[in-house]
């Protein structure tokens, strides 16, 4: 028995001012990147890797959230699920973001230099995995896999708007079950390839999980930001604090999870003190990197933890919006801390790095605007929708 009316199946495009802002930011970011590539291609390539990993987080993470709803049969997220599917629309653009990198692999990775590998027995042992053809193949295979699942999930969801067929939900649930193991493997490959192999002598079995923690957190934060923003602007049917609570709780939970994984990785390598492993952390403690490391703890853990701890905070729209933006910024700090020390010993921060948040923000707005123009904001055909709109804790 629903008290909230199911919205009609109409499209509500984004206001033109916001769309223009999106294009402006995107263009600005691209110009920054162009300038960066022209002046210092190696540095631009590293920035590009950060951008790729950030956008991959948002795209694959959004797919993960969609799959999670289908798998768990959750109803609180059903009114928002179409929005998250829109955000997953970043997936087809990932190959484009990675394309410039494929021409700069030599600048990024030591193992692409034949003479370096020839003189290094350890690197020689890894050539079966770390070689350019296989690397490129993996990248495209991952992108294609994500694209396939993106297409399947959204096709079922959009079809359901027209037909209202409950079997499509069952189909999506089965698809989600198949997606999760695939997601685990593809995300790990992405992290290992673009993140870990920057330092080919180093290895950590938890690295994939670390990137996953950041991915899930980023996706939830972006979803929260977009949902609250559109809710305030009246684009979504009225949702109570009860629906938003779960978003706040998920953000809080993944902040904790990220800190747990990050600390585990650190503690184990610190404790055993093996030079072949600790040098990775030593890089991030010298030549100014200590400041970034400490600020990472504060920015990525301490502040969001205490800000989202009270139960009321998890339902408060203003708090959620601010913390979502904060967490997305913290994600960039984490990726920067992860990637940039392989570029150079000292902390490199300049106008070139500005390209990353500009392109990312611009791209998200542009993709969202494009989707909102073509599809309905709410999955009106979803059988769980009325329960979702009436959801109470």
């Amino acid at each position, binding site marked *: 028995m629903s008290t909230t009316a199911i919205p009609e199946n109409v499209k509500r495009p984004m206001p033109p001012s916001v769309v223009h802002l999106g294009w402006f930011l995107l263009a600005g970011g691209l110009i920054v990147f162009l300038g960066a590539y022209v002046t210092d291609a190696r540095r631009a390539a590293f920035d590009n890797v950060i951008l790729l990993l950030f956008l991959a987080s948002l795209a694959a993470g959004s797919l993960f959230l969609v799959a999670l709803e289908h798998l768990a049969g959750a109803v609180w997220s059903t009114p928002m699920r179409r929005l998250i599917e829109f955000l997953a629309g970043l997936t087809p653009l990932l190959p484009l973001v990675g394309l410039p990198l494929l021409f700069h692999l030599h600048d990024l990775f030591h193992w692409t230099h034949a003479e370096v590998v020839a003189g290094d027995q350890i690197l020689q042992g890894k050539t079966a995995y770390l070689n350019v053809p296989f690397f490129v193949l993996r990248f495209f295979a991952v992108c294609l896999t994500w694209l396939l699942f993106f297409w399947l999930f959204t096709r079922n969801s959009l079809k359901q708007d027209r037909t209202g067929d409950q079997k499509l939900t069952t189909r999506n649930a089965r698809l989600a079950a198949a997606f999760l193991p695939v997601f685990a493997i593809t995300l790990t490959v992405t992290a290992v390839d673009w993140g870990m192999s920057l330092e080919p002598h180093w290895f950590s079995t938890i690295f994939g999980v670390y990137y996953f923690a950041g991915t899930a957190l980023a996706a939830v934060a972006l979803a929260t930001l977009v949902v609250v923003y559109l809710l305030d602007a009246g684009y979504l049917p009225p949702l109570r604090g009860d629906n938003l609570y779960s978003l706040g709780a998920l953000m809080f939970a993944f902040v904790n999870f990220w800190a747990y994984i990050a*600390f585990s990785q*650190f*503690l184990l390598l*610190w*404790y055993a*003190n093996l030079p072949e492993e600790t040098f990775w952390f030593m890089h991030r403690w010298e030549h100014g990197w200590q400041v970034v490391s400490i600020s990472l703890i504060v920015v990525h853990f301490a502040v969001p933890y205490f800000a989202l701890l*009270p*139960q009321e905070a998890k339902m408060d729209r203003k708090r959620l919006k601010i913390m979502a933006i904060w967490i997305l910024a913290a994600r960039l700090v984490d990726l920067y801390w992860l990637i940039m020390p392989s570029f150079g010993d000292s902390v490199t921060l300049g106008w070139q790095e500005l390209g990353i948040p500009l392109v990312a923000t611009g791209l998200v707005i542009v993709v969202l605007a494009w989707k909102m123009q073509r599809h309905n904001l709410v999955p009106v055909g979803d059988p769980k929708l009325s329960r979702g709109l009436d959801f*109470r804790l």
Partner: protein
Amino acid sequence: MTKGPLYAITALFDTPDAVMHAAGETAKVFTHYDVNTPYPLHGMDHAMRLRPSRMGFFALAFGLLGTVSAVGLMTWVTLVEYPMVIGGKPFWSWPAFVPIAFELTVLLASVLSVVAMIVIYFKFPNNRHPLHDTMYMRRVSSDMFGVYVKAEDPAFDEQKVRGHFARLGATQIDAVYFIVPEETERPKIFEPKFLGVLAVTAIVAMGATYVTYNKLLYMVPFNWMSDQAKLKAQKPSDLFGNGIGMRPPVEGTVARGFLPYPFKGKPDDAGKYLLNPLLPTAAVLERGKSKFLTYCSPCHGNFGSGDSRLAGQFPSPPTLHSDKVRNWPDGNLYHVITEGQNVMPSYATQISREDRWAIVHYVRVLERAHNAKESDLR
């Protein structure tokens, strides 16, 4: 059993909706009332206009207490009380403190919050409340929902309250009285029976602890590690004739880094081959003086003239200023201190080799002072 004064008027309701409505209506009129349900109803907080629970602050406070105590204890132990280099890490290794700090935070926050809630908010344990053992309590414990208004409410009037509940559709309205004696709403922590049980428990626990740690741990098999068959210092032993576990070293044993005295019984060789390794510096002479006064002066006198208290007893300790002694090479003097001579015992165990040489220097100083020449003054 005589009934005490009226405690409250209770009312039972059949459905959750009915009791919610009743609670809301009662809250408008009365302040000293309560609702009883077999499980918590959603929205009742709002109907009763209850302020949000402060449990969260308790948890935060106790949690922080846990964190601070844990980090404090570990810091004090590793920096002040028992600093040890472990794994080459610095004394204060904060990453290693995180697990224990986290556990203690959770422990104190959880346990103390619940205890605080039970004791402070609920004022439990309390099994003498007037509502216990009433039909009302039996029903709300099982499948009905209830509201009651206490007699102490300023707006209380028995007929008015009964009418209020009847209008709200209550299925059963009853009066509940205080059990005599009164004071049934205060906690029973200070009741003699409870204190008695507490005292007995304390005595039993103390007794058991005492017996365990002072008696039991010295019994077989718990004492096997402390009572070992190996010989330790001061322990007796049946293995040896004199029953003593500690054995002196075998005759002729030489300690490491120590050469035995090569001139045993040969004073002239000692005089011929031994040279004073020390220089007669002020420090050496001071040492020699101090040792001379301690060991030599009781017999030979403060200035080596043989004028000590023992002079006059046979045999008198000789003066050190005789020609014989003055003409002795240093090695002879050293030999006499080492081996003794006639009645004089060996001072080898009391005076270290270096000190003996210092004494020799000092004796030479005394001899020179005793036979001073004009030239010495210049």
